[in-house]
């Protein structure tokens, strides 16, 4: 029926976007100033012939179309080049750093969504109450707060020697600490707590605000009066009729955000030395490590595209009207 066509259309759309990103990602790095071979040979007084050889090895002297064909072919074969800094294939480097980010972003997204939506729902339900006013102020403040600043404050309060020293200062595990078993999980959990809390606080304000306003909007709709007229309790009206409708804009926002959260964790990962993709990006920028950056940019773009696709699919699932359009 309409559902399958909707699905196909969305996937095709995502593939087109991906193709565009691929092209853009190629040219972006050709426009950047500086000769990669020179950077690669930096601080080493290499003879000119050696630089020439490097250029040849990396295919930098090929005509641009040829370079693009090589790049596209390599990318499709999941060959993203060799990192300048780590002297290892980019794919491998990224693979080694992807799970900490997935863990951090996953926990933060689930935490902020659940808490944010609940705050929003309760605030809208008890509009004008003390809880509503308080949560509104809280949401606005955390929404406006830069996450790296919040992260540093939390570090000072709960991890530094001048603070409570409840949590470690950074990294994902204690060096030389337990490497497996429950002790390992607890260790990672302790390290995860502050960066995850920072991201949750940074994200949930927006979710709470959107959910609240969306629900208030929906509560004025005619079918809510119908639901009350049928004799439902207020809680049933809310759960069965108001919330499912109010979720539509909120879920889209959460899913869309997911793509940006992956790249947006850069500052939080830096503050907490969390060995994920964000920190890796900073390291690649400092080098500068062009192949690694190119690989990371591609990954971040894919994350956004996939998040978009997920948002579309969830929306289609939640709202039967979309499937037909």
């Amino acid at each position, binding site marked *: 029926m309409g559902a399958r066509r909707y699905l196909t259309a969305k996937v095709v759309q995502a593939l087109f976007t991906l193709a565009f990103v691929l092209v853009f990602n190629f040219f972006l790095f050709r426009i950047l100033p500086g000769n990669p071979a020179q950077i690669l040979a930096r601080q080493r007084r290499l003879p000119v012939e050696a630089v020439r050889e490097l250029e040849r090895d990396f295919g930098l002297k090929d005509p641009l179309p040829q370079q693009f064909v090589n790049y596209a072919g390599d990318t499709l074969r999941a060959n993203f080049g060799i990192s300048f800094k780590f002297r290892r294939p980019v794919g491998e480097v990224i693979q080694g750093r992807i799970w900490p980010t997935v863990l951090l972003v996953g926990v933060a997204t689930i935490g902020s969504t659940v808490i944010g939506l609940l705050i929003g729902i309760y605030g809208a339900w008890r509009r004008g109450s003390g809880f509503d006013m308080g949560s509104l102020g809280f949401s606005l403040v955390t929404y406006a707060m830069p996450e790296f600043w919040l992260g540093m404050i939390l570090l000072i309060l709960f991890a530094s020697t001048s603070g409570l020293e409840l949590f470690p200062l950074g990294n994902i595990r204690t060096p030389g600490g337990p490497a497996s078993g429950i002790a390992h999980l607890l260790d990672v959990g302790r390290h995860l707590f502050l960066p995850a809390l920072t991201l949750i606080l940074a994200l949930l304000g927006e979710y709470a605000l959107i959910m609240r306003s969306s629900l208030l909007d929906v509560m004025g*709709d*005619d*079918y809510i*009066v*119908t*639901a*009350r*007229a*049928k*004799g*439902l*309790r207020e809680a049933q009206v809310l759960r*069965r*009729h108001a919330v*499912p*409708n109010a979720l*539509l804009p909120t879920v889209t926002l959460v899913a869309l955000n997911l793509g940006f959260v992956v790249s947006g964790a850069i500052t939080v990962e830096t503050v907490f030395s969390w060995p994920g993709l964000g920190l890796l990006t900073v390291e690649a920028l400092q080098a500068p490590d062009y192949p690694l950056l190119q690989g990371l940019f591609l990954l971040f773009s894919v994350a956004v595209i996939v998040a978009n696709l997920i948002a579309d699919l969830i929306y289609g699932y*939640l*709202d*039967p*009207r979309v499937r*037909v359009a």
Partner: protein
Amino acid sequence: MIAAEERVQASVGSLLSVRDLSVEYPSQAGPVPAVRGVTFDVAEGEILGLAGESGCGKSTIAHALLRLLPPDARVTGQVLLNGEDVLTMKFGRLRAVRWDEASIVFQGAMHSMNPVQRVGDQIVEAVRLHRPGTNDRQGQAQVGELLERVGLPARRARDYPHELSGGQRQRAMIAMALACDPKLLIADEPTTALDVMVQAQVLSLLKELQRELKLGLIFITHDLSVLVELCDRIAVMYAGRIVEEGPAEAIFERPAHPYSWGLSGSFPRIGDPEYRRAPGGLPGDPPDPQRLPTGCPFHPRCPRAFEPCPDTDPPMYPAVHGGFAACLLLDSKLNPEGARA
């Protein structure tokens, strides 16, 4: 007044009797009276038409009957449904009464059904709520029956509201309203958003169901000509008050209140050449409920206003059609020549 007392007496044994119902909405500039002391009755199996321009308070009454107004609205008076006062009953009892004893077909079926829930599920919800023992199969069967009764195929239960046309949606809404066999059905402008052909179909459906199920029906509309065909009695509202009440035919043919003259003249009688030459209709707009005119609220627009009108708020007088009208023209002392010119 003798007239009003007689009307209170008449309420005994009726399905719904509304006594002196008033509704005020708060606003920055003070309370806004939307309904001002409305009294009427609906007997079992009777159809009462409630007519008036938009903003006269007729929808507010519909919502007040099941206490569906926003919590800040101030509602006073009595709404006796099967002898129980809806306005003072406990919330739990109110929930049990809603839909089970009286249900509403809302204006604009477009928005009065949940867009993300299947039509059948929305109907079953009402059944299950008031008949807790109902299992899935029984629920499904009942939904199918209800839909077929309103002229929709049972498989439409699986559709979402947006997959139905306007007329079908209104039929589904009616099916939902009948889900718990209520004794009273309140239809709040159920045909307003529909085109004329569909309107006629929905109207005849409502009439048929009403007769079959012996429903008490309150039909609210601005279209007096619709009410004539459908109703036993008509109450005409102006500025939050009933200004004329009586047998349907008589009110349309021989209205006693000048506002009803205008209202019945506002709708063209198809095929009536007289109407083409002399369209009636009312000059001016309905009054702002916050700044009601003194005396009779209709006097600034009234073609027959005379000296006492700006100072005296008219009570109900018996009218020649056997009903009542709130017009000083009917006062034999103020207007000795009699009611009709």
